[in-house]
């Protein structure tokens, strides 16, 4: 790329040869009106709003599609440019309904903004406006296609970014219509971005519909904490309520996109199941009480028991501050019984695997091996970066229990039940080591390899910039630690980077503050050990615990005293808890999220906590004070964050023995829909109404079904069985929005 100088409106500016005029102008802060151009999408040049005068050209040129060349002289607002821009504006408005007073886009509409500047007051058009009957595209996006200006940003977004060719421009001429083929809804985990890219009110947020005018809201910078990325968002609030969440640009984190989960989960905040008042259980009956009373009850219950009998369990989505304070409280009490890994078959787990690649680094990989993950739904923004790499030619291979619907082509895939993943990966490692002429460790000596393993190994070693991604489904695997170890070895042998996405949410904050037992009991052991006092931080065992029935049974023991800090009321928690302390939910508390790059992103509360609920860090601080524990004299959550961030957890290397042996039993791989991944999303109605959110299916192969004596349509752990061959032998893949059942 050669650097060039051009002149825009008399100013000498710099660009690269071939760069579009609009991109140079944008960088220089020179305003050129546009509708179809979007910096993250391909150029369409169809709206014609950006026409400018380029000296030497008889016709005005679109700034978005005209490459700059050295010495070019551009006028963005001389008479010729203005005349063209005004002409286009007039054309755009003749068939636009101009129903701004009832349009949700009003006040933040690109058309409205530009019209103010370029439109003429009186329309000379008197011929009757076009009205478009629209098909509707699902629970999240409201369509009012009469307002559409045919810029095709949404179509391009779908095809280019989301990787779904579902929207199209059908018909022709004046009949051109932006619509999907069927009205079943846009099937994408990123669909809500279409709302952001739409310059007018044709695509707006359905849950937000008619809630409040855009200019009446305040925007607060925040961070979404549903996944490992911590996408930057604005929460838009009105009268103390979050009314909408939109993307906030941060090129190195989420670019300009956010996942639907991050965008629509806020809806859960207003759900009627919110825990709003402190409660204590008196003789089996719940009583609403004051905070003082509830806290008294909590500490007296805790104090009654010895430190060894005390355990703390926390949600992976808790804030850094909450996690820090709860671990501190627990440790000050003298207990090491701490855990967030409630959903893993074996909490010694995969957390030791380090992430060695950055988000932007993912875009540059030429090969990605994805293990135990439906990455697209688990980590939409990480998957998006890998998709971008595939658009540049990167290949993807997978080792998964099921063939998932990725939004890019998977070059080679191995179906592997969790218990066989160690064997599968051992084979891959063996090929890699042998091709490097490296000595084989003992555990690989007897390993047999098949073609699929060879293919994956070869692809990895051929890659210059490979990455191995380990996903959430590894948690179903009792040998998760071995899998993690093998991933590390494979990466080492192939010079690839690693990405540990085995646990989601704010897991890296839990790691940061060592919210795990150092010599104490892990989640599973706590339940086995029949502890006498628990503090649960936004934990809902019916969903969150791998063996939810056992957990609930244990917590329900008469001699188990349970203090539940909950943002939502949940039937099973009500059944076993003794004290409910209502907790501020997402966006209601200040906090910090540590993302996959180990970047700590702090945010303040967007709104006041609902009802009588309080931010977790305050509740925990007061609890500690009442327990007369030292070191809790915080007055601000940022002081907590400072303390937490100054910790440097010791990464004690644990020895892992790898036993590469095929295990004959049948495993269950449990995967929640992305909209059942945490308590807030589970309470967001629109997310639940999407097709992605409504999946509930236990897929099993014919052979495995026979062994389990399952037939099509039966229930497996409460989920309808679907028999087909997309799934590995020896496992049942449960993809569901339902609580776990035995």
């Amino acid at each position, binding site marked *: 790329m050669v650097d060039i100088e051009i002149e825009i409106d008399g100013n000498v500016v710099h660009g690269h040869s071939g760069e579009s005029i609009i991109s140079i102008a944008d960088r220089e802060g020179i305003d050129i009106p546009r509708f179809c151009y979007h910096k993250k999408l391909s150029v369409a040049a169809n709206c014609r709003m950006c026409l400018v005068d380029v000296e030497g050209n008889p016709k005005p040129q679109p700034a978005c599609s005209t490459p700059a060349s050295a010495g070019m002289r551009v006028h963005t607002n001389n008479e010729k440019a203005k005349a063209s821009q005004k002409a286009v504006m007039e054309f755009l408005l003749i068939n636009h309904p101009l129903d701004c007073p009832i349009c949700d886009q009003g006040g933040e509409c690109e058309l409205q903004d530009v019209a103010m500047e370029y439109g003429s007051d009186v329309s000379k058009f008197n011929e009757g406006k076009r009205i478009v009957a629209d098909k509707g595209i699902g629970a999240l996006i409201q369509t009012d296609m009469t307002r559409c200006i045919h810029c095709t940003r949404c179509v391009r977004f779908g095809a280019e970014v989301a990787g779904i060719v579902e929207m199209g*421009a059908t018909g*022709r001429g004046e009949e051109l219509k932006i619509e999907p*083929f069927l009205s079943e809804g846009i099937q994408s985990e990123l669909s809500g971005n279409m709302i952001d890219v739409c310059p007018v009110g044709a695509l707006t947020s359905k849950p937000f519909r008619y809630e409040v005018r855009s200019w009446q809201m305040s925007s607060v910078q925040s961070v979404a904490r549903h996944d490992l990325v911590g996408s930057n968002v604005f929460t838009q609030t009105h009268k103390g309520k979050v009314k909408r969440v939109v993307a906030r640009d941060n090129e190195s984190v989420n670019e300009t996109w956010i996942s639907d989960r991050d965008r629509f989960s806020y809806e859960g905040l207003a759900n009627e199941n919110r825990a709003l008042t402190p409660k204590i259980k008196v003789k089996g009956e719940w009583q609403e009480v004051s905070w003082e009373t509830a806290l008294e009850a909590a500490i007296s219950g805790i104090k009654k028991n010895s430190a060894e009998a005390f355990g703390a369990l926390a949600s992976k989505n808790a804030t850094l501050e909450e996690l820090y304070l709860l671990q501190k409280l627990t440790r000050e009490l003298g207990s090491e019984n701490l855990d967030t890994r409630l959903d893993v078959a074996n909490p010694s787990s995969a957390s030791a695997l380090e992430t060695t690649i950055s988000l932007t680094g993912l875009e540059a990989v030429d090969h990605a091996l994805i293990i135990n993950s439906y990455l697209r739904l688990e980590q939409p923004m990480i998957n998006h970066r890998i998709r971008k790499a595939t658009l540049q030619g990167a290949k993807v291979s997978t080792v998964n229990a099921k063939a998932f619907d990725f939004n890019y082509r998977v070059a080679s895939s191995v179906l592997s039940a969790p218990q066989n993943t160690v064997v599968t990966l051992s084979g891959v490692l063996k090929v890699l080591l042998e091709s490097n002429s490296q000595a084989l460790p003992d555990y690989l000596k007897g390993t047999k390899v098949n073609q699929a393993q060879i293919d994956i190994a070869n692809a990895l070693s051929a890659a210059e910039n490979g990455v191995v991604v380990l996903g959430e489904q590894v948690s179903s695997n009792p040998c998760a630690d071995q899998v993690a170890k093998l991933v590390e070895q494979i990466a080492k042998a192939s010079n690839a980077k690693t990405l540990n996405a085995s646990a989601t949410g704010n897991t890296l904050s839990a790691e940061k503050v060592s919210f795990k037992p150092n010599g104490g009991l892990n989640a599973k052991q706590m339940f086995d050990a029949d502890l006498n006092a628990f503090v649960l931080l936004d934990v809902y065992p019916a969903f969150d615990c791998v063996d939810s029935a056992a957990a609930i049974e244990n917590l329900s023991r008469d001699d188990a005293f349970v203090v539940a800090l909950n943002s939502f009321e949940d039937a099973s928690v009500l059944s076993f808890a003794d004290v409910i302390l209502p907790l501020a939910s997402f966006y209601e508390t200040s906090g910090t999220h540590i993302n996959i790059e180990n970047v700590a992103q702090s945010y303040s509360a967007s709104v006041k906590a609902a009802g009588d609920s309080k931010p977790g860090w305050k509740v925990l601080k007061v609890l500690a004070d009442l327990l007369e524990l030292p070191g809790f004299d915080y007055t601000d959550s940022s002081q907590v964050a400072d303390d937490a961030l100054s910790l440097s957890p010791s990464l004690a290397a644990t020895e892992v023995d790898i036993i590469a042996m095929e295990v004959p039993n049948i495993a269950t791989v449990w995967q929640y829909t992305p909209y059942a991944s945490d308590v807030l999303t589970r309470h967001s109605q629109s997310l639940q109404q999407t097709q992605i959110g409504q999946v509930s299916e236990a897929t099993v192969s014919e052979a495995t079904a026979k062994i389990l004596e399952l037939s099509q349509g039966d229930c497996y752990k409460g989920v309808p069985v679907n028999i087909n061959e997309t799934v590995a032998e020896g496992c049942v893949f449960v993809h569901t929005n339902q609580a776990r059942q035995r």
Partner: protein
Amino acid sequence: MISEQAKQQIDTWVAKYPAGYQSSAVMEALKIVQAENDGSLTSELIQAVADYLEMPVISAHEVATFYENYNHKPVGKHVIRFCHNISCMLNGADDLISYLETKTGVKTGEVSEDGLVSVKKVECLGACVGAPMFQIGDQYYENLTPQKIDEILDGLQ
């Protein structure tokens, strides 16, 4: 949904384009499938064509709604496509279209009760030296007069 014979026909078109660009054949594929389904397309047929050519169905739908020669409503066994553009108009096309409408009892855009003919006004068919003209099936009929129209109509079955 698509007959074996139609698939073979489609395949001969697919063979003209480079490997991986089989969707270049979508326009003909839609025509072939339309022809074996009484001259019009349904969503199911469009889906079937898209599946056969391994292309996104919305793209096939875009094509099916962009071009004139696809019908999305039932049409007559014979579609009379009458040119009403400038050269034909200068040579009396409008009067002849009225004549045709009266004669067949079918208004433009409609199908006769027996399903035999439908009449459509179309833009220039590129036979202006033979104006006025219309097209039925593959055939152009030029230098039309009322008498000629009578004869042509009598020949339709």
